[in-house]
């Protein structure tokens, strides 16, 4: 793969909306990505293998739970910093961002938000450093967009809970040390449980044959009469709002991340259009190439503004689920469009691993579906407008 000379576009001088600290965060993560990730990512994606050796580096740079409090070994940063970290990671690869999103927003966040003080102290510092890795079990084979219908359940056996069921499409599952699992109790109420690798009856078979997120490990979680200690129940939430609160946080990170993938495709296409000579001039000198680049930059600039504003709202704790949905949906959609246009500008080279375009494009096919599908996010906006749910 070529040397990574990525520079983000900033057509509207939006860097001026960021603090010096935000820019330092971006600079730090970008430097780390260029040094540790860019040189290896294509190879791992081609081989459909997760580069497990980077977990320690992700932990030490502070990519796991950066906005949770310092007292639990986390970064104590604001939401824009969190977004920027996700953007810089996904600029390289959605699969690596997924690993960080899951760890930070779907494992550490619920333990922090819904867990007991003992659970926080036991798990968060090790999750922040990458010593422990986690995954999040919500989706089931028959319950994706409709998680409330889940069948995974647990029974109170007096001194422990007995967990049965299965979860599917779980990022990090094959190597995770712990899983935050959402399951129904005997009364049909959803609760979160921390399940640890090694508990008898708990297995995590890997999902093979993916054409997307190939550098990320995906698997199932299977619970066959797993005895879960009672202290592993997250005590401070019940009902669907538990997992949905986590998803708001993760989707917010995805909105930033997908924009990163879009900017990487644009940056590569822009550079290629200047280097590639046809009919004795750079292809960037032809109108149809300029149309593609101009439209890409327009969409990126709009998405940058949308995302930054969402970050400000999130910092003020005012970002609604519907606002997050709109940003996630918009940014993934424009990233997919930009990846396809960038692929065309790269011509035949665009389908090779020499350039990141095809990998981004395939990754984004997962991102457009997971964490609320493209259509469901549209209906969330529709429900926000009308007050009427079109999916229930």
């Amino acid at each position, binding site marked *: 793969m070529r040397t990574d000379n990525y520079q983000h576009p900033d057509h509207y001088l939006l860097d001026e909306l960021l603090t010096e600290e935000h820019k330092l965060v971006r600079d730090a993560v970008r430097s*780390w990505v260029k040094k540790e990730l860019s040189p290896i990512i294509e190879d791992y994606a081609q081989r459909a293998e997760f580069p497990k050796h980077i977990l320690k580096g992700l932990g030490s740079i502070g990519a796991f739970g950066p906005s949770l409090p310092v007292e639990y070994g986390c970064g104590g*940063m604001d939401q824009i910093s969190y977004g920027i970290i996700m953007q810089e990671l996904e600029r390289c690869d959605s699969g690596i961002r997924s690993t960080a999103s899951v760890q930070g927003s779907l494992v550490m966040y619920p333990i922090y938000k819904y867990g007991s003080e003992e659970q926080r102290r036991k798990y968060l510092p090790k999750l922040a450093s990458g010593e422990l890795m986690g995954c999040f079990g919500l989706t089931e084979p028959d319950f994706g967009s409709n998680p409330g219908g889940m069948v995974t359940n647990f029974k109170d056996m007096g001194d422990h809970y007995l967990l049965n069921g299965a979860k599917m499409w779980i990022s990090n599952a094959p190597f995770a040390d712990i899983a935050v699992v959402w399951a129904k109790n005997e009364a049909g109420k959803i609760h979160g449980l921390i399940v640890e690798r090694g508990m008898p009856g708990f297995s995590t078979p890997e999902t093979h044959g993916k054409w997307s997120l190939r550098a990320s490990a995906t698997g199932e979680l299977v619970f066959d009469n797993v005895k879960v200690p009672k202290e592993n129940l997250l005590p401070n939430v019940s009902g669907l709002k538990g997992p949905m609160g986590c998803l708001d946080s993760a989707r917010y990170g995805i909105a930033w991340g997908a924009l990163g993938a879009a900017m990487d495709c644009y940056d590569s296409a822009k550079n290629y259009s200047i280097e590639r000579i046809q009919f004795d001039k750079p292809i960037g000198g032809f109108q149809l190439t300029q149309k593609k680049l101009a439209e890409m930059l327009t969409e990126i600039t709009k998405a940058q503004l949308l995302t930054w504003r969402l970050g400000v709202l999130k910092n003020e704790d005012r970002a609604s689920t519907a606002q997050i949905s709109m940003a996630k949906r918009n940014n993934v959609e424009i990233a997919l469009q930009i990846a396809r246009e960038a692929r065309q500008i790269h011509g035949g080279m665009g389908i090779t691993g020499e350039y990141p375009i095809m990998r981004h494009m395939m990754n984004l096919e997962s991102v457009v579906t997971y964490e609320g599908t493209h259509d469901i996010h549209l209906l969330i906006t529709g429900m926000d407008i009308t007050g009427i749910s079109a999916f229930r």
Partner: protein
Amino acid sequence: MKILVCISNVPDTTTKITFTPDNKAFNKAGVQFIINPYDELALTKALELNEAAGGGTVTVIHVGAADTEANLRKALAVGADDAVRIDAEPTDAFFVANEIAAYAKDKGFDIIFTGRESIDYNGGQVGGMIAELLDLPMVNVINSISLQGNAATIERDIDGGREVVSVDTPFVVSAQKELTEPRIPNMRGIMMARSKPLQVIAPAAAEKRTEISQYQAPQSKAGCKFIDAAEAETLIQLLHNEAKVI
């Protein structure tokens, strides 16, 4: 060890260098400034020395205007304990060395680090001048350094080999590429940098002794021509007639 690391602000290595219309000044518009990469190595090595010794302090110092503070904040995020900015334009090496020496002279630093040169003007003079002004020994362009109490063992490249130098603190050294790997700040470091002291002090009286009268951009390089391996004759002709090198 009490260590002082001199930090210089330089244009990012990807910057397209242009000058003002009268060619008398570097055009800073839109240029991103970074910590001079050799100074980053010096900072990292200073931190490593103190970590290995289990204690000490690292102060970073910079001569420059307020718009350079982001890079001092970065040095703090990387791990420096405190930062000093001497509020003056760094006009030439003599001026900068005088400012740093004036600050350092009564502070009792064991080691003063600089980079071997800044990657913009490539003067490589400040370290030597600081040593002279403070009457300290200096070892220039070092590859490695280790400490045993106050005694340092330093390795540096010389023509066709390597030199091992012993020197006792206090001394001045300049860092080069092999010394270490630059450290990337992590999120916790960035957070902690918020509350670390960054002191701004007025410049001491010092003169500048040189003046840049004009800049000239290098001539743009001619494009490469690729000649097929089967056409060696064409290559020889071009080398004869066009490049005129044989």
